[in-house]
């Protein structure tokens, strides 16, 4: 709570393009869209909180929110090559992985506030899970 209180939140309006977690707000290329910058008082990005990437490069067909140690969706349907954004809105760290024979990925540790986009390149039906929380299961159908 104390840590959050020390954060200053800046909102800027810009078009496509996005800032990486390490970028400073003043380096933004104003090309459209809405970007939120969450920084510490000295302007540096606080650990565990990354910028929401809302630019065109990070377009996702589906957004899946993790909260209360659950994926808030049970199923997601996307076309081949489609993208799913996983957004950790929990107070604890998560992970997202798929260990299927046909399609594998593992995003590693995902801190609170992090957003990761995964491209599903292979058609099929996959179970996506969190390696930390065994109850977290999402069925992704790619076709």
């Amino acid at each position, binding site marked *: 709570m104390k840590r959050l209180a020390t954060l200053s939140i800046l909102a800027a309006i810009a078009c496509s393009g996005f800032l990486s977690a390490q970028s400073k707000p003043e380096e933004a290329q104003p090309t459209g869209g809405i970007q939120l910058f969450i920084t510490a008082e000295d302007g540096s990005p606080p*650990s*565990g909180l990354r910028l929401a990437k809302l630019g065109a490069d990070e377009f996702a067909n589906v957004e899946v929110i993790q909260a209360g140690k659950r994926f808030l969706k049970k199923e997601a349907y996307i076309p081949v090559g489609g993208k799913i954004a996983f957004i950790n809105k929990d107070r604890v*760290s998560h992970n997202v992985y798929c*260990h299927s024979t046909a399609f594998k990925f*593992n995003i590693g540790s995902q801190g609170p506030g992090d957003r990761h986009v995964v491209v599903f390149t292979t058609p099929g039906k996959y179970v996506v899970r969190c*390696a930390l*929380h*065994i*109850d977290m299961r999402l069925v992704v159908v790619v076709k």
Partner: protein
Amino acid sequence: MKTAILGTTLGSFFLACLIADEPRLDALKHSYARPDSVPQNEANPLTPESIALGKKLFFDPRLSNSGMVSCASCHNPSLDWEDGLAVGVGEGHKKLGRSTPTILNVAWNRAHFWDGRAETLEDQALEPIKSKAEMNMDLDQMIEVLKSMPEYEKGFQQAYPEHGITKNSVAMALANFERTIVSGEAPFDRWINGEEDAISESAKAGFELFNGKGECFKCHSGWNFSDSSFHDIGVLSDDKGRGAFLGFESMNHLFKTPTLRNIAGRAPYMHNGSEATLEDVIELYNQGGRVERETLSADIKPLNLDEKEIGDLVEFLKTLSSEDAPITLPALPRPEPLASL
């Protein structure tokens, strides 16, 4: 005048905080309330016959290659269903790599083994039996041994008439007996049910720390004080845990969050028994782990707990122990006597 108004405002604010605090504490207590029933596996409903059969199997040393080791040898009901050792001891009295986890409240676990490699008790049950390091029993041989005893034939016919004696029905019976091993009512349960004197003031302060500054609640949540999640909490150990099972380096050194029920009697602690006392365990968390490495959970960081706070947390943890009635041991089936010559 201004001071008086400010004073009144502040007073009202603090009073409001105090009043608001009661529902918060009640809600917090409620989140740890005991459930009314035991979770079941729909494909293996709890029946008196399957539970009784599973109990015999659990205590039967003839499920091991040596004929000397039963499930209960390590999961000893006299020691809170553990063995009191840092790491388990298996075939040939050789030490195993990890400590024996308790069977208490396993029905609520969503993953089994320290690395969570089995997701149901039915999947878990045969693994230690066939493990060369543990009971080292060939499962076909196990079936033959059981079939040599008419009382087991009868027991399986009653519990699982569609299966008879099979590997699956052995696993199902063991799983169902294990589901019935539930820690009883502890002083903590009586306190959250309104018996204010059931635990000490120090333990009550410990409960607040558990759910606040100590951040224990993040994983040790719910009535069983575990969310079955996996973390590297900085235990001194090279064991790769869940990372070795999943094949992900980023998951190295992750182990399952154990229940805290009856924890005071379950020393030594951690997956390798490396922490001797509850004070040691809290000191590990207070330091932010005993070791720095990439896989260390982001939630593990120095807590700045002082000695009194550590003492309060220990007092709280001690209130989670129940005084359960002794378990009765089953008489085990015997082979048919040989026909007299």
